[in-house]
């Protein structure tokens, strides 16, 4: 599944790096705890989160994540978007709450970080 398909499935807006939506996440994780993300996600994963501060981008950068979806209508601060553009990390924003956003992607075959090689 590409990030472009993720955008369609979640009816999401693109906030950064539209040109990188051909990327394909290998797995995904939903979390509002950054050190959880740092400890348990795989590289090339997609992160779904309700957090919007710049440290989310830092965490994605350090963990080699492939993109971020902000859930339940949250919009990040401009500083967060600027950092994402600099680090080439695509940002999407959906109105869906966490459970539903994760559920839609999972139903379409995007697996969790603990389920992939």
């Amino acid at each position: 599944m590409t990030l472009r398909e993720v955008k369609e499935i979640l009816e999401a807006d693109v906030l950064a790096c539209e040109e990188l939506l051909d990327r394909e996440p290998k797995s995904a994780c939903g979390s509002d705890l950054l050190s959880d993300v740092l400890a348990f996600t795989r590289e090339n994963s997609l992160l779904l989160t309700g957090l919007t501060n710049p440290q989310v981008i830092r965490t994605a950068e350090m963990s080699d994540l492939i993109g971020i979806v902000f859930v339940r209508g949250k919009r990040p601060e401009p500083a967060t978007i600027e950092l994402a553009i600099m680090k080439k990390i695509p940002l999407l924003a959906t109105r869906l709450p966490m459970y539903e956003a994760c559920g839609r992607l999972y139903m379409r075959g995007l697996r969790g970080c603990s389920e992939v090689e």
Partner: protein
Amino acid sequence: MTDEKPLIELERKIEGGDFQSAGDVSSELKRILQQIGFPPSFSRRVVIAAYEAEMNVVIHAWRGVFRAWIFPRYVHIEVDDEGPGIPDLELAFQEGYSTAPPHIREMGFGAGYGLSNMKKCSDRLEIDTRVGEGTKVTMDFFVRDV
């Protein structure tokens, strides 16, 4: 450390409470490791551990110095801070234990996984801490043959 000459030495200051710059040092380290051409899985665990250590200074201490020595197949990191120190190290290493205040938790930190993740990512971790003075984290990372 060995007496071999490092390819690069990095030394940077970290300011406690400065969430604007938090992560800059680890980001710079990541760029250097990528440029040298370390395997991505190796760079990833070094950089994740470095970021956890950097954030612990920003969150829990007053100020610190981050130093990295990068060798062809080995990275040595020391993060030395002035701060409150850690009264009970065993407790601090327990997953889920955190003294982070509410405004830090709101940012997504304070799950209490940082120290155990640093242990998991590194090949050697040592912590020297004195209550009321500060904490020094030393980590070593070896490129493992695939």
